[in-house]
């Protein structure tokens, strides 16, 4: 930004960005590397906001669970790439929004196209399972699964679906011939149950 006009344009963009966040009820947005420190900071920030607003304990716990698993999905999976490309090193976008009836936790990160089929199958399989089936799958995976090098247990998606009791909504958008942007959103009802 080397002149006044650019600065003004940028500040106008910031205002539009702010309005857009408000319109979508976004309370937290982050783009960058997702580290353990970031995970701790975001969960504790959201936790203290929820507790200030007297959100029921059950809702607070669910939001906490979903946030941790979503953030760890990025930190443990998005960096499976050897590329130096900035898109691929545990980076991603992370959003929390709070509406009248529910919280949403949304993540976006780059994935190689050849993972799309695997991810789609995994998510579809989890989405069509009922409570009992998910419980059995979780137990099976906990018993038989191995921790990945980065400490992933392959349980995150199952846990999110179990905690939210809602389908995992996801979408892939093309970035290039080899890569896509993987978006995932989970909603947590604010009704106490």
């Amino acid at each position, binding site marked *: 930004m080397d002149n006044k006009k650019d600065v003004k344009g940028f500040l106008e963009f910031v205002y539009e960005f702010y309005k857009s966040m408000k319109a979508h009820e976004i309370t937290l947005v982050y783009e960058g590397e997702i580290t353990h420190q970031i995970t701790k900071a975001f969960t*504790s920030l959201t936790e203290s906001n929820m507790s200030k607003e007297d959100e029921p304990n059950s809702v607070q716990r669910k939001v906490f669970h979903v946030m941790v698993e979503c953030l760890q999905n990025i930190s443990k999976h998005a960096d499976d790439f050897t590329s130096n490309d900035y898109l691929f090193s545990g980076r991603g976008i992370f959003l929390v929004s709070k509406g009248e009836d529910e919280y949403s936790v949304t993540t976006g990160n780059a994935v190689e196209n050849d993972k799309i089929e695997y991810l789609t199958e995994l998510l579809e399989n989890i989405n069509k399972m009922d409570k009992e089936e998910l419980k059995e799958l979780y137990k099976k995976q*906990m018993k038989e699964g191995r*921790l990945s090098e980065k400490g992933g247990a392959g*349980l*995150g998606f199952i846990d999110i679906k179990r905690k939210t009791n809602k389908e995992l909504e996801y979408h892939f958008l093309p970035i290039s011939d080899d890569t896509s942007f993987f978006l995932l959103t989970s909603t947590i009802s604010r009704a106490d149950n």
Partner: protein
Amino acid sequence: METIKIQGTEDTPKIMLDKENEIFEISGRSLPEDVSSFYEPVLNWLNEYAENPNSKTVFNFKLTYFNTASSKLLLDILMKLEEMHEKGQDILIRWHYPEDDEDMSEAGEEYSDIVDVPFEQVPY
């Protein structure tokens, strides 16, 4: 044998393993950055303890939160205790959960389904 005393933090549980005073407890929150290395000393300690355990072992879990990666390591601990039980040792797991936390109570039930060891649910 040596005791393990680890202070809890916002992302790691408090751990007390004290053979002499018969205290076996994991409590608080568990989402360590590296679950395997965090729980490694606990599993090592249990391996050593299993060779010469007390006449009765009451192992308390009093967790308020654990992430999915921790759930796998907690199962490893429970399986170690199951192994001791299978060898005829007197083991009791006490799974404490906040009384309004259904998910934590269900997590206890699930563990008790997987491992064959005396298991008690304790609401607080």
